[in-house]
């Protein structure tokens, strides 16, 4: 009797082992469910929401993250870098698991606020030179993410010029408080002779500055407008697009949204792709990857848009080859 009980127990054990071996090894694609991951996301620029935010959220959802279930988003859209610094400190104090910084200002703020909480940046220009990471292949700290193009300004201007070959004098708006501006201006000036343009530098920091500069810009003296500052791009794009339209000035933007709203040309990263790639970084860090070991990826996907309506308003005829090259043409 005792023996038979032993046999039964053994059979049960064997069954359990078999069942266990069949049952385990579930799909590794589902994220760790131990907790609700709290992610702080922030961006400077009140007049728009970055396009990559939606694609980041979608990307995370397709990776198995459900807001309210295993992930919680704390999204802050902020007026300026000061607010970004305060928010970064708040994020750290409230013990978020991860911070997503959408452009240079928030990336800098996050870098200043913490050296422990992982930070994923999405739209920075030159993270090595700005001291966000040690190198692209080995970030070395708590920040990593996606990098835009450091020398994209000249390429943007060349595209601008290809769309409007009559372009000569280009007003370059710079923000004295933006560390990126001098670099961009330097690149633009270096390429000016090749591009056969003449940059006209204007320093602006506020809405009033911008309105003043646009007010004094006269057709004939300035052929187009270009923004040599990410701060200004994220904060005042909407304002600048509309002022340019008012003043009949061809405007070069970094995002197709502004081309749609009236900028003649937009040339910049594909923000949808950036958001999706950002979701991958978030996922990998949640799974245990260290930002220090997670290389910074350079985005290869560009988006080039032309607004033909604006072109018509300006009396421009856009070369057919450029219309063919454009990813989006607003008619």
């Amino acid at each position, binding site marked *: 009797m005792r023996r038979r009980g032993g046999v039964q127990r053994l059979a049960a054990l*064997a069954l359990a082992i078999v069942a266990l071996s069949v049952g385990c090894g579930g799909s590794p694609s589902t994220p760790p469910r131990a907790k609700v991951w709290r992610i702080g996301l922030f961006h400077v620029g009140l007049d728009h929401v970055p396009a990559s935010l939606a694609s980041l959220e979608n990307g995370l959802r397709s990776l198995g993250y459900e807001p309210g279930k295993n992930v919680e988003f704390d999204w802050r859209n902020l007026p300026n870098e000061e607010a970004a610094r305060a928010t970064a400190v708040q994020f750290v104090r409230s013990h978020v698991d991860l911070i997503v910084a959408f452009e240079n200002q928030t990336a800098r703020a996050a870098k200043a606020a913490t050296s422990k909480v992982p930070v994923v940046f999405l739209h920075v220009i030159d993270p090595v030179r700005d001291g966000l990471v040690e190198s692209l292949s*080995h970030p070395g700290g708590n920040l990593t993410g996606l990098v835009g193009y450091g020398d994209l300004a000249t390429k943007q201007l060349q595209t601008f010029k290809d769309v409007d070959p009559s372009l000569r004098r280009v007003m370059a708006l710079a923000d004295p408080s933006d560390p990126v501006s001098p670099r961009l201006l330097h690149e633009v000036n270096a*390429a000016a002779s090749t591009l056969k343009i003449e940059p006209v530098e204007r320093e602006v920091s506020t809405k009033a500055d911008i309105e003043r500069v646009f007010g004094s810009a006269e057709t004939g003296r300035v052929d187009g407008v270009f923004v040599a500052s990410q701060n200004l791009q994220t904060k005042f794009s909407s304002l600048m697009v509309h002022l340019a339209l008012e003043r009949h000035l061809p405007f070069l933007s970094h995002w197709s949204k502004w081309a749609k709203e009236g900028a003649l040309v937009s040339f910049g990263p594909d923000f949808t792709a950036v958001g999706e790639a950002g979701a991958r970084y978030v996922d990998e860090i949640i799974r245990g990857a260290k930002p220090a070991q997670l290389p910074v990826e350079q985005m290869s996907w560009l988006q080039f848009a032309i607004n033909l309506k604006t072109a018509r308003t300006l009396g421009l005829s856009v070369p057919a080859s450029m219309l063919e090259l454009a990813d989006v043409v607003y008619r």
Partner: protein
Amino acid sequence: MLSIGRKAATPRRGDTRQGGGVRGRSMFRKYAAVFVVVVRSGVAASGFVHSYFSYRDNKEALIRLQREKATAAADSIQQFVQQLEDDLKSVAMPGLPADRQGLTRRREEDRELLHRVPAIAEVSYLDPSGREQLRVSRLGLDVIGSGMDRSKEPSFQQATSNELYFGPVSFKEESEPYTTVAISLGPQSGVVSAQASLKFISDLVRSISVGQAGYAYAVDSRGELIIHRDLSAVLRRTNLSSLPQVRAALTAASRNDRMQVTVGRDPEGRRVLTAERLIGPLGLHVFVEQPLSEAYASLYSSILRNALLLIGSLLLAVLTGLLLARRMVGPIRGLEAGAARIGSGELDHQIQIRTGDELEALADAFNQMTARLRRSYEEVEASRARLVLAGDAERRRIEHDIHDGIRPGIVALTAKAGLARQQLRRSPQLVEATLLELQQDIRKILEDLREWAHGIHPSVLSDHGLIEAIEARIERIPSNVVIQTDPGLRGARYADEIEVAAFYLVFEGLANALKHAQASSARVTVRRRDSQLIVEVSDDGIGFDPSLAAGSGIRNLGDRVEAVGGKLRIDSQFGAGTKLFAEFPARDREIAHRDPDALRPPASP
């Protein structure tokens, strides 16, 4: 048999159970072990054979699959490279002049190519002297007519001489892998060269799935990771030349196209099943790997399953063996205990075994043997009692014979002697006649006495042996009696008790034949067969039914024969005469005498 059993059982009667227990247990263990070994070895052997073959088959299938995956990965990378070459050819336009218009036209085509193929970052056109006439870049400025001298670059030199050039893999900003592809536009027509990022191939190999945890990757000739489904691993600049399979592939780079499957290690040190292929133009080694733990997971679980089944069935076999052995050994123990009790003298003990098999038959045979033993024992007892009675009857007969046969003669002698004394006084002339009569009477009584004594134990038997004693007896019988015997038996002597019993048989047999059976003739046969002395007495009398012959005469006869170790058979039926057939052990006279003193030197006769 009985005495041996008793001797064996008696000394350890007290520990019979214990002794039986020890023997029983060893037998029990033996049967259980034999059962388990026989059953197990079959099952285990088939289990092991099955496991071994399924292990081998599975392993071969896995290796085949791995090779196919490696080929597929290599093919898709090859296709990517081929596509780059084709893309470059599509913008070659050898006939286009290198003037302003031609270069503008070329730039438009190149921009279109960049737009179409995201992997290409830059396309240049170098004139036949190796000077750059056009550079179209995805990110940088497009430059027309820079005239930069690039004739020393290997891409220009090799494309010019070989028509096609694939550069080694380098890393842009120390992170992103890219290569240079260049084609010649024809003799003295210049070269088109392109820089292509290889990180897009990672997307291609990501779709190559090898189980759950398997993956494909490629390293260049230095072991640098170029292609991996995890782009981070590539951008991180991982050198894998320390992995055994990578080292082996790099050192064996002389072969052009080969496949190899080994067990290698992944960067975490886990063992992996790996297959490798070399992609010619880029000099990349493609590996397809899968952790051994996963590759062999189904194998291991099947082996585990088999092992568990083996253990489970082993336990069952042990259990069954124990049960069977117990069923077998239990009755044997019962038999043993019963035999021990019978051996110790309990002849009425019955062994109870109800197994319905040979063991029950054996127990039944035991019981029958015991019953027969008991019966013959009872017979011995009865025969012993009868012998005592027969001795008493014999004494009474002698007393009766003396009282009725001899005493009246002696009384008559006494009377005749008194008559002679009176005659001596009254008429002496009559005395002589009376004395003569008296003398005759005494002689007659002496004769009668001798005759009587002869019937008890004839002296001729002691003096001359069986045959002559029988002949002397037959002479005194008026009827027609014949004796038939082997001549060699005459004078042969046997043990006293044998000779007496044989003579008594003849004496009584003849007495019966003549007194009761009214036979007219009888025959006595004495012969020797091997160690048996055979004595037959047959007559032609009226016969009788032996089964009804409860007469003490016949039974006494049997008892006496059996008392000396012989056997008696009586054949008789009404009207067909009677035949006594007796066998005696032909024990020798001297041996019979000598036997009790066997240790003494032989006595001289």
